[in-house]
């Protein structure tokens, strides 16, 4: 039999096809647009505006031509702070997500790959950690570690670990019974190779979906932790922190000190979730 050539229909790569589909989804595009906007604010915002410059005698000024979003209690320009406020959260949340995904994937691979006592023991631990709501877990971690950008990353990353591990474990459990794993065993591959080079590439799609979903949670959690005062610390123009500092002011009519930050958080989390949804749909 001679090879007739690759069947035509199968030649377009799946990746390209998925991309095309993604670009047809308005929700995904809107989400992506918003994310790109905030990312560019995070990257270049501070070149254009100074979120720290105070004009202390002009505090709590309402929005005006000079201060589009008004000023805060120290007379700092809220517009500058909202723009610059994207930076820390967009550094911390993705790093935390990556950390959580990396640790969780490693743990999940081990759990899924070694059923029996290894999985049993780790599963109990994971289950025990999952018994605590994410926020409580992160709060406890931060109370123990102290608040700084690095510890927020660590705390959220660690809190994500068991959840990610559970997802990855489930994916590994189905993969490990597939014949290609047996085939790799038959040629004497080590467990590490099996996990890292055989199984891992195949469970990347759910991990990527998990990543985007986790990113949404991470942003949510970073903002919430900042709001509770244990996350990002002043003088960061972080949105959650700003809301926490200023929300008691709105009763006095200083709505601009909170509104724009709230909108910023909402827009970013919604955008990330729109993108996550789009990816999840396409990954199916």
């Amino acid at each position, binding site marked *: 039999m001679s*090879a007739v050539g690759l*069947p035509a229909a199968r030649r377009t790569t799946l990746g390209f096809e998925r991309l095309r589909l993604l670009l047809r989804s308005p929700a995904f595009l809107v989400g992506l647009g918003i994310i790109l906007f905030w990312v560019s604010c995070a990257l270049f915002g501070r070149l254009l505006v100074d979120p720290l410059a105070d004009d202390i005698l002009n505090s709590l000024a309402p929005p005006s031509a000079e201060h589009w979003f008004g000023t805060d209690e120290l007379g700092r320009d809220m517009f500058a702070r909202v723009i610059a406020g994207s930076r820390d959260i967009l550094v911390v949340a993705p790093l935390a997500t990556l950390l959580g995904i990396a640790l969780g994937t490693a743990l999940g691979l081990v759990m899924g790959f070694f059923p029996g006592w290894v999985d049993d023991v780790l599963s109990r631990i994971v289950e025990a950690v999952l018994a605590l709501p994410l926020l409580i877990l992160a709060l406890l971690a931060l109370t123990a570690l102290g608040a700084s950008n690095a510890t927020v990353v660590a705390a959220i990353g660690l809190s994500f670990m068991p959840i990610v591990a559970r997802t990855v474990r489930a994916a590994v459990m189905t993969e490990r019974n597939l014949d290609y794993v047996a*085939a790799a*065993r*038959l*040629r004497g591959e080590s467990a590490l190779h099996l996990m890292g080079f055989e199984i891992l590439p195949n469970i990347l799609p759910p991990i990527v979906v998990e990543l985007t979903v986790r990113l949404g949670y991470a942003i949510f959690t970073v903002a919430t932790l900042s709001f509770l005062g244990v996350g990002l610390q002043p003088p960061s123009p972080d949105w959650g922190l700003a809301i926490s500092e200023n929300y008691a002011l709105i009763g006095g009519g200083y709505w601009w000190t909170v509104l724009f930050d709230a909108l910023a958080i909402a827009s970013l989390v919604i955008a990330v979730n729109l993108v996550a949804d789009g990816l999840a749909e396409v990954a199916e």
Partner: protein
Amino acid sequence: MTLLAEADRGSGVSGTALRPDALRISGLDVSYRVRGRSRPVLRGLDIAIPAGGTFGLVGESGCGKSTAAMAAMRYLPRNGRTDAGRILVGGRDVTALPAAALRDLRRHSVSMVYQDPGRALNPTIRIGAQVAEIYGLDGAGPEEARARALAMLGRVRIADPASVMERYPHQLSGGMQQRVVIAMALAVRRELIVLDEPTTGLDATVEAEVLDLVETLRRENGTAVLFIGHNLEVIARMCAEVGVLYAGRLVEQGPTRAVLANPRHPYTVGLLRCLPRRGLDRRRERLDTIPGFLPTAATAPAGCVFAPRCGLARDVCRADPPPLIPLGDGRSSRCHFHAEAPHLPRNAPAQAPAAPADRAADAPLLAVTGLNMTFRQGRQAVQALRDIDLSVRPGETLGLVGESGSGKSTLARILLGLTVPDADSRLALDGEALLPLGRRRDLAAIQMVFQNPDSALNRAHPIGRIIGRALAKLAGLGGAARRERMLALTRGVQLADAYLAAKPRQLSGGLKQRVAIARAFAGRPRLIVCDEPTSALDVSVQAAILNLLADLQAEQGVSYLFISHDLAVVRYVSDRIAVLYLGRLMEIGPADRVFAGPHHPYTEVLLSASPGPDGAVKRVPLSGEIPSAVDPPSGCVFHTRCPRRIGPICDTEEPPLSPRQDGHAIRCHLDSADLGRETAP
């Protein structure tokens, strides 16, 4: 070519002339929207099934046969749509019926049996309620509905229907589930029943029973049947008429017997030639194959859809799509040159590769003695394999058959070292003890070709990497040497070099299986375990793979342990055959002897369950379900189902595997003379 009997099915029922056709499909075009694009699946399909008639729609994967079934039920997937054509069930156009009338039609006129009965039943509702529901729709009160459901379950020969009524679907075996579905489909007398691969995934023994059941009930009710399948044997048994579907088009149609006996379309011809037939032996003659790939309706060329793969194709074929040409006697063929079809030139040379010398006298390559395998399930010890003795000689193929649950795969896994047997088991390869995988010295010696090529290849890796890695690990090759060997290997399995850069999903099933075979041959394998290597493949692809395996064996002198439920395939490829039942070796011996008999009663049942497309063997019915390995029957484990049980000795005393003649051994209390023999020549 000997052809099938029993021509009078369906069409012989009297008094049907005045009734409208049970199903008449005309000019049906169906397409799916996939990723925003419309992809045709069926083109210009015409089918007519008279009242009480039986029609088989046969075709390989992707040809659109299930779509035809769903279109007939007006239950296309959400992205499917009927672009043109009419579908009349009992004279009513289902494509135009309002919702209420459609429901009425489904309640009273047409029903369906599905490919996967386990999923077709609602997992959270008791069997009784699911069946009774139909009678409820029919207007029966709850009591009456239950009573009728009970009766109906009895009619589909479910033992103890009252207890089955109270059970949930997952508590039933696949065969039982399918009986329930059939009970629902035939609960009320209907004009048409659509069977969509109803026996795929069932064991041959169960399949035979289910088919018998459908046939009986169909006759009793005078229901017409549209039977969708890929298996020509099954179609031949069930249907008076057959239509061969290829790439969304009906390419040949006519009375089953006539079509199979004298196919008039090159595709049908090729398809039949691909089947391993009785009397064929890999050492003597290769199977014929069909070149190229199966297209779908969407990728089919402009002219004759079969032209790119047809040995008879000329320019006109590539330019003009042929119409369905009537041939008389109710037959028609979509071929410009239908008359020449029987003379389609062979694609694969018939000449079998030079067979290595008979090595029956050689020391066995693989020797298994006293193999036991016990694993724990909760607190219970389950003996999956018991006291297995077998050997495989160099260059030999040992076929391993048995129903699912018989321990075939466990045996394979033990040989491969993936599973560790009980301590007292002795396994040796070339006289050297065969250790579990972690401690095995020569990994390359025993390799495997898996059943499902989709899962056997890592879909994340390109083909070149898959084979290259095997070469690195099993042959210890690197650099240019590896590259060179890789090319040799891929050419050896007739895989174009271009595929090395492709990912598995870009390959068809057959190509994937070639990659898997190349991988197994990366080192210097002595024994390759082939676990149902072709069961997931289409018939035309299967032939090519079987040829390839035979060629490679002749070339390299490798031995195969060939596991399959398809006796025709096993017979074609095997030198010797071992029959497993519930973890026990029931029979082992040269292939000819095992097939010719005397058979173990279990072997006899298996043989009778799959007569092949051209063999009419008297069915030996097998009663009951395979017992649980947790609590195997006493004495001969087969005694609970044995049609030749001789008495209490079978219940209490396990017979030994007693040698009969010529290396043939049977585990049965009966004398060889009393055991069954092959009835047909």
